[in-house]
């Protein structure tokens, strides 16, 4: 089985698990049960329970919904933001190009995680703020990618031909150039999504992500830290889910990158 297919299958499993969480695990992830705190692994609680007697598997599945939607929204935002501005810079050129390039260069001069942390410090914690912070911090990569792809495509002969036939600049870009490089950008997007899953978890771990008690993978892991030695499963279980999701994106990205390389 190729890496792409393996990654896709893994992703679908994780996705189905989190989407249909209420059906698979009818236990409420927020419902405490003080008579069953720190319960071990059993048929009733496949991953045990935490300090408040909440079911760890339910929490891991529910956390996946929050974490996956945040990571995927942030990936969409960062591609849209960086990709659009990069294409605009490449097609307009001149002062717009210089100005935008300088701005994104300056963003690149911040260590990535610090930039996310600072934006969250300015905006406050929460799901939307996390998406915005990661979307901004990730955008310089897509600006550069889109700009360089668009520049080389716009100079190629088939775009020249479209120009000779009277196609406007936006049409040359959208209709002719874009379909030829959007694939490479989306492949990069899969690996960004993997990173964003980890960044979101780190932010939540620091208490700067989605506020408690909403379970996200980072939140569940953060809470598990205080009783790590009493209930290791509360940390290990959700961590494996998170790693599987991130791994699935990574596999798809790597496999697709190799395929694109071989063709060119």
């Amino acid at each position, binding site marked *: 089985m190729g890496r792409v297919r393996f990654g896709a299958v893994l992703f679908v499993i994780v996705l189905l698990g989190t989407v249909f969480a209420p059906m698979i695990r009818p236990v409420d992830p927020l419902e405490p049960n003080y008579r069953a705190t720190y319960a071990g692994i059993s048929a009733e609680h496949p991953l045990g329970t935490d300090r408040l007697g909440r079911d760890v598997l339910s929490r891991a599945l529910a956390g996946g919904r929050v974490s996956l939607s945040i990571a995927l929204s942030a990936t969409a935002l960062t591609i849209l933001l960086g990709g659009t501005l990069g294409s605009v810079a490449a097609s307009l050129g001149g002062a717009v190009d210089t100005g935008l390039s*300088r701005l994104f*260069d*300056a*963003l690149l*001069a*911040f*260590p*990535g*995680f*610090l930039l996310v*942390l*600072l934006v969250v*410090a*300015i*905006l*406050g914690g929460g799901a939307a703020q996390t998406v915005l912070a990661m979307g901004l911090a990730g955008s310089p990569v897509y600006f550069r990618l889109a700009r360089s792809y668009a520049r080389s495509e716009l100079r190629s002969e088939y775009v020249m031909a479209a120009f000779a036939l009277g196609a406007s600049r936006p049409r040359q870009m959208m209709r002719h150039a874009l379909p030829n490089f959007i694939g490479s950008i989306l492949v990069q997007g899969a690996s960004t999504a*993997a990173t964003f899953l*980890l960044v979101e*978890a*780190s932010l939540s*771990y*620091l208490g*700067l992500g989605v506020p408690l008690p909403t379970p996200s993978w980072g939140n569940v*892991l953060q809470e*598990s*830290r205080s009783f*790590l*030695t009493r209930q*290791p499963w509360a*940390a*290990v279980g959700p*961590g494996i889910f*998170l*790693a599987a999701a*991130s*791994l699935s994106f*990574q*596999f798809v990205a*790597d496999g697709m990158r190799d395929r694109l390389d071989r063709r060119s």
Partner: protein
Amino acid sequence: MTRYLVGQIFSFLVTLWVVLTLVFLGMRALPGDAATILGGMDTSSEQIAAIRERLGLAGSLAVQYKDFISGVVQGDLGDSLRERRPVTAVLLDRLPVTLALAGLAFVLSLVIGIGLGLLAGLAPGGPMDRFTTLFATAALALPEFWFGFLLILLFAVNLGWFPVLGLPPTGLSWQAAWHLLLPALTLALPRSAQVARLTRAQVLEQRTSDYVRTARSKGLSPRGITRHIASNALPGVLPLLALELGGLLTGTIVVEQVFGLPGLGATILGGISARDYPVVQGITVLAVVVYIGVNWLADLLQAAADPRLRTA
């Protein structure tokens, strides 16, 4: 080389200036008026004016900007609101822990990454190559702090080989290296994976080049060929190493938290939650200067190693 150097210094300064301006504007975009928040409800307008003065928020934006830039140039980052002493003093207190941790993590990632990358690249398709590819993919997919949990569970709790949390009471000493080893290993894992990937790719590229074929056909020993390949492949890894070294100063934030280490990470998180903005701003300036500086140095080193790069 001189002309190249002058150009590089100029572009370094321009980037630094743009970034400092962004930091200045960002700090002024913080929610609410910092002086009012800090003063609380029952503060008179004179007290607020005094706080504002201390924060460097008095005067027009242009005056504030001038003070901020000239302060940074002179190494003055203002006063911490919480600790009531210069930010530079706070940073100097906390920096050694982070530097020790970052240094150890960097050395580990360098040794593991380059070692695995070379072994994998020199025998593509072999067992070492397959192991390295698997290791790199897995290491990049694991949340850093979660790997820290696992190390704590395994080595500190179950086996009892390492201390679980914090530094020894003696502070930073040789004994502290033992305390820093697990957090450094946690930091080194994803970083060594990236180094290994790039080293492998660079080695693979060199392996098939003409000079290697010539060296092989004239009967050079495998060791000699490896030396040729390494000396051409490794400069290509420099920019990545610089990104990692430069990023480690703030890359330690999460891991410091997991292992309870009192470094820069703990300081910036404390600064954010206590709204001690001068401290957050100071650490940001320091981190960005180091980050740009190290990357810039790597460019110079790479140009020194490879004259073809000196044209830019």
